[in-house]
């Protein structure tokens, strides 16, 4: 573990140095919002962003990817082995990656996800500008300890560069004029963290995190499900933008010779009408209400029991993506707590 001190200018020089060696995905403006995209030079990198439209999950589980190509009965797996750097990941998104890693490495180790994940170096960044809907302070994900290769924290006008892993060291290697951060500066990050924990709370959350699974257990018949689902378009926006959602669908696409082709995996989501349609035409979550309810059970109970934490990191993306405004997990869990 080592700590360096950089000015914003040093930091951009470092990024330009990285760009000469490896693909770097960093946050850039997209209209008046932000998105992770391949960086060409450090000047377009935004470290003051509030939230990206899609989470960095797209680099591990792309919206569409080829799993294998086939010809007749023969097939070859397609695995993307290119190393890359994800630059500027906020703590809540990193917490989501930690959950996804557990899911994709357990049971059936997913080589497509895990190869990309193992080839990625993650430079995390403490939040500088809170987004209007972020409630990660409620979810214990406003600040993260570990999981990153490097963590950047802006304290006053300089950055503390916390190099945590061998991969992190590799990134910083060859940089001339590195200045070690004095302990006082390193410690002053606590002020930033305490502040983020309290200000990243756009919505109050009444039940404690450990209370949520139990609350859900006794709320199957609660009126809130039907009330909210009444306005639901089953449009899937809330799950498409979510950093902890990982449902997918797999389809084959044939070439014109009709015997060769590709097997494509693409994002799917439990809010979509036919998501739970199985062979024989039975849909085990036919109604909007069942699907709407399922999303909260999944986040607050099913996946929570699997990964050991609530499967919502409070990024607030679902809140802004839902056109009728019914997807806010805090609102729903608060209702369950109230009555």
């Amino acid at each position, binding site marked *: 573990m080592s700590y360096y001190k950089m000015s914003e200018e040093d930091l951009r020089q470092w990024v330009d140095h990285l760009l000469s060696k490896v693909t770097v995905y960093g946050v850039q403006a997209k209209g008046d919002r932000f998105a992770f995209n391949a960086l060409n030079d450090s000047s377009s990198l935004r470290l003051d962003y509030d939230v990206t439209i899609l989470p960095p999950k797209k680099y591990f589980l792309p919206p569409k990817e080829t799993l294998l190509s086939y010809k007749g009965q023969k097939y070859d797996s397609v695995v993307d082995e290119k190393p890359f750097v994800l630059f500027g990941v906020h703590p809540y998104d990193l917490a989501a990656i930690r959950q996804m890693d557990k899911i994709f490495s357990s049971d059936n180790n997913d080589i497509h996800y895990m190869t990309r994940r193992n080839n990625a170096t993650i430079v995390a960044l403490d939040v500088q500008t809170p987004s209007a809907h972020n409630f990660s302070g409620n979810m214990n994900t406003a600040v993260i300890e570990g999981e990153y290769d490097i963590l950047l924290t802006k304290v006053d006008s300089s950055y503390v560069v916390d190099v945590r892993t061998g991969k992190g060291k590799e990134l910083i290697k060859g940089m001339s004029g590195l200045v070690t951060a004095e302990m006082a500066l390193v410690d002053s990050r606590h002020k930033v963290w305490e502040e983020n924990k309290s200000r990243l709370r756009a919505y109050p959350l009444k039940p404690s995190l450990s209370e949520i699974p139990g609350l859900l257990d006794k709320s199957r018949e609660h009126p809130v499900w039907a009330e909210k689902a009444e306005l639901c378009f089953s*449009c899937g926006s809330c799950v498409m933008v979510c950093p902890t959602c990982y449902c997918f669908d797999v389809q084959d696409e044939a070439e014109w010779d009709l015997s060769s082709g590709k097997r494509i995996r693409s994002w799917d989501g439990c809010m979509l009408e036919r998501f739970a349609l199985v062979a024989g035409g039975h849909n085990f979550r036919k109604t909007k209400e069942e699907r709407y309810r399922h999303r909260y059970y999944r986040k607050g109970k099913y996946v929570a029991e699997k990964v050991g934490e609530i499967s919502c990191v409070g990024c607030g993306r679902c809140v802004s993506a839902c056109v009728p405004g019914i997807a806010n997990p805090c609102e729903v869990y608060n209702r369950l707590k109230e009555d």
Partner: protein
Amino acid sequence: MSKPRVAIFDFACCEGCQLQIVNMEEEIIDLLSVVTPVEWREAISDQSTEYDIAIIEGSITRPEDEERLKTIRDRAKVLIALGACATIGGVNKLKNNFGMDDVKSSVYGEARDMPHLSTYPTKAADEIVKVDYKVHGCPIDNREFAYIVKCIATGKEPVIPYYPVCVECKEKENVCRFEYGEICLGPITRAGCDARCPSNGAWCFGCRGFVDDPNMNAGREILEKYGKTVEDLMHRIVLFNTGRKEE
């Protein structure tokens, strides 16, 4: 099926969807390795009454069209509706918002009563005959057309998106038009176009038709949230989806 014979027929439309097929360029050769065209006014001069697959482009706007379509249906094993005009009636349905006499007067003026200018409220192909496959959109996406042809050739059921455009719009990482105070029909429109319009800075006007179970009540209620009126919404819906399930 051994290399099925295909015939393409046009009804009321701009023929833009056939043009999309022509635009497949070198892939046309691949297409011809899978099917044999026997009638296609835009590309070949032959005419035929024997075919396995009939492709219908355009909407039905006159009583005589209806008879022609039924005859085609009787002859074909498989019938494909090509493009919004055929799948949902398309822009041609706009006229159904007015009286037919007014429509004829405004289009043909003095000549409106000539017998060959008869017209009646526009219908989509499936309002008259059974349609086996629909290639949605105005115009169609030729990759989707190619995919459906390959599925038919291999006897596989094509998987056409049933969910709303928002899914693909999110995959494209677009900012939602509603966040800019615009009405977008994405939440009630069938996906499959890769959210073509929102990805180019416009709202979706519904050319692929509604999803199976569009939530119209929610549509009305959210207008209030965004300071819009039901008229604002209806103005957008009539363009492609006049008379289709908006209660």
